[in-house]
């Protein structure tokens, strides 16, 4: 039996055995399910690269038409299945994305990006246990991917395991600091690390420093500007708080995030 299947079997056994309580599996159990081989992501060929560019540009509908044609020809091609899932993820249709990403993984269980985006889709669906499992698979296959460490940090934060969250965010920062174009990733991790520092250490000044670092790296990070405004205000640094407030409004106007509500 391939090692990956053994690991999957082990994690499925561990669930039902025990106290029959609703307690979540411990972090230790989760780590068991992490494979250790580092796997290269297979390169996309030219057609698939074009479809990826379409998704990236927001033309997800046209992308899906082309990917569908590709899948008619190569129905079990994990890259095509992954891109179909990615297109739904881009549209924030997470339930749809999950089924395609699972198909991509079924076709090729060691396909790192599929695990990564499966993690995010399940995160946005409010399924933290499934999301954690997917991210752990991903960093098992690609331990250097900072964004999955960041996601695991968010999950730790949500479960209020602050030391684990700190460790994940610091890893995410260090892995991405030296990579060109990943300043946004470092910025996001720094902003969330500030939450840990504020909650656990009650060190508001250090949290403010991390938020300043976050918005220096990525000035469009409006959520970090908002938190910076609130913390500065709490520290009675009213002039700086007002500057952060204005920067928050400006960044939000630049980014124009979807409200998440009907438009």
């Amino acid at each position, binding site marked *: 039996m391939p090692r990956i299947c053994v690991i999957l079997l082990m994690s499925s056994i561990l669930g039902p*055995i*025990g106290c029959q309580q609703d307690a979540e599996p411990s972090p230790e159990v989760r780590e*068991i399910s992490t494979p250790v081989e580092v796997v290269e992501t297979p390169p996309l060929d030219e057609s698939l690269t074009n479809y990826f560019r379409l998704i990236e540009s927001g033309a997800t509908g046209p992308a899906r038409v082309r990917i569908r044609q590709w899948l008619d020809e190569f129905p079990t091609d994990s890259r095509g299945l992954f891109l179909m899932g990615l297109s739904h993820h881009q549209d*924030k249709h997470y339930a749809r994305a999950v089924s395609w990403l699972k198909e991509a993984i079924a076709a090729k269980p060691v396909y790192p990006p599929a695990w990564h985006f499966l993690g995010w889709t399940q995160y946005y*669906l*409010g399924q933290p246990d499934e999301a954690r499992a997917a991210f752990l698979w991903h960093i098992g296959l690609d331990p250097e991917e900072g964004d999955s460490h960041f996601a695991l940090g968010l999950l730790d934060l949500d479960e*209020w395991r602050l030391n684990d969250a700190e460790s994940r965010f610091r890893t995410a920062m260090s892995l991405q600091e030296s990579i060109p174009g990943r300043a946004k990733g470092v910025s996001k991790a720094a902003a969330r690390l500030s939450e840990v520092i504020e909650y656990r250490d009650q060190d508001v000044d250090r949290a403010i420093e991390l938020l300043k670092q976050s918005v220096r790296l990525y000035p469009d990070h409006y*959520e970090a500007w908002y938190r910076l405004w609130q913390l500065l205000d709490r520290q009675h640094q009213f002039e700086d708080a007002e500057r952060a407030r204005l920067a928050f409004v400006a960044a939000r106007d630049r980014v124009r995030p979807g409200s998440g509500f*009907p*438009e």
Partner: protein
Amino acid sequence: MKKWLVMILVGLSSCAEPPPEAPPRVSFVDVTGNSGIQFTSTSGQLPSSEILEVNGGGLALFDADNDGDPDLFVANGATLQSPRSGSGSRLYRNDSQPGRIQFTDVTESSGIRLYRWAMGAAAGDYDGDGLIDLHVTCWGPNALLRNLGNGQFEEVTVTAGIDDDAWSTSSAFGDVDGDGDLDLYVVNYLEFDPANLPRPASYKGQRVMAGPHGLTAQADRLWINQGDGTFRDAVESGHLESIEPAYGLNAIILDFDGDGRQDVLVGNDSMANDLYVHAEAPGEVLRLRNDGRTSGLAANMDGAEQATMGMAICDVDADGRPDLFTTNFSADTNTLHRSAPSGQWLDRTRQYGLGLRSRPWLGWTTAFLDVDHDGDEDLIILNGHVYPNATPDTMDAEYEQPPQVLIREGDRFNPLKPHQADTWLGIPRRDRAGALGDLDGDGDFDLVTAELNGPIRVIENRTGHSRQYRSMVIHLRDDRFGVSNRTALGSRIRSLDPPGPVRWLHSGGPFQSASDAAVHLSIPVDIQSWPVEVTWPDGDVTQHVITPAPRITIEHGTGTAP
């Protein structure tokens, strides 16, 4: 031995040791069938096609006939074809006996003739005659129903000076100006004309009903009680510079900033929430300012403005200050704001486990309640999507969604798993409004719910009381000269020994509804005389020693100064 096998064995062995006392099994039983309430509410038609249809009607549990138990008012809507004339709201008299919840429809004899599209209800004795009156929010003119006694009501909206043609969703009573009588905050939503329907909108690529964005928001109204049966608009009177138009859904009147004066918190739909606090010096004329943004209550921790359908108050961190929980849209999280000594409100949703797992749910009514009688407050949430075409495939969420009970365990609120035999918990519905009250006088809160275009349900709390805690429901009574806020809306009750549990008694909150003006508390069963401290709405503090019983009324004059 393999590490995972050790873990399994350890886990199995720990199962063999029973806990000292198992917590009581939480049990909410749908007893509608034998309750005397067989009523299906109207709010347009199913499937809903316009925003006017999706909120449904609210509920009020209040003592309409002054006999000591909560009666039920049901705000009922109408249809888009006949929006100003529906089948009418209802009043039910509580005739329950211990062990049996029973209501009787007394609408006809009550004099309530309310056939307009009613949305919500708030209860309070605005005229200080000792009888609890009712304010009903409507699409179109609202209604102030004065309680005449003997279970009779008359509409006095116009003579009270609070007629308003806006679409009002919720309202709340409270003594905002501190003069001893109840003022009224009316939450307005948006302009909607059934004869001129707006164009549909889009959500997640699906065609959906229009609004609220794209439709014209309406400004709320704060009505100051003049003490003579009439009210004056606070903005026109100069007490407030302005109230900006917003898609308002909910309000709570309470002392949010701890200055001893009653403030107003307003939950707005996908817009910043408002918090009106006192800006005047003591003794000066009432002057309010909006501190929503600076307080941190306007948005969640990332600055995102949320839908804020339901609002509930609890002292989650046992610091004596109120904390706020709000329910929100699907694909967003519910939010818990903790109040800090600095006056700021800090989003601590994650700390209490209320964030990520709430993303599939679209929440409405919410309330804190010590469901399992262990001394701390748990959480009830009613859910249901607004869009009939919501499915996991189209919107990552179901249209009909189950109610939730989240049990407080340490710092976390963990969802209670329904049992197969449950008749309420875990069953997907289109729930909207809900109100709490001790319907059968057994010392705990039961629940009444309103499903959109569905039945009004009576849900009896049959959770067994533990051997360690005694459960009781407490009302307040303030008959001081010059005070007409008899039920003491806006009060705070604190246990002195054992030190800890704090509860607030306030108007507004659940969603377009009013729970009975009472608090539920569980205290250790060995306590025979229980010292509590009451902070009354005007800031006056009294201490009382009470003998535990299922129903208790604390009267202002019976206390001592601290």
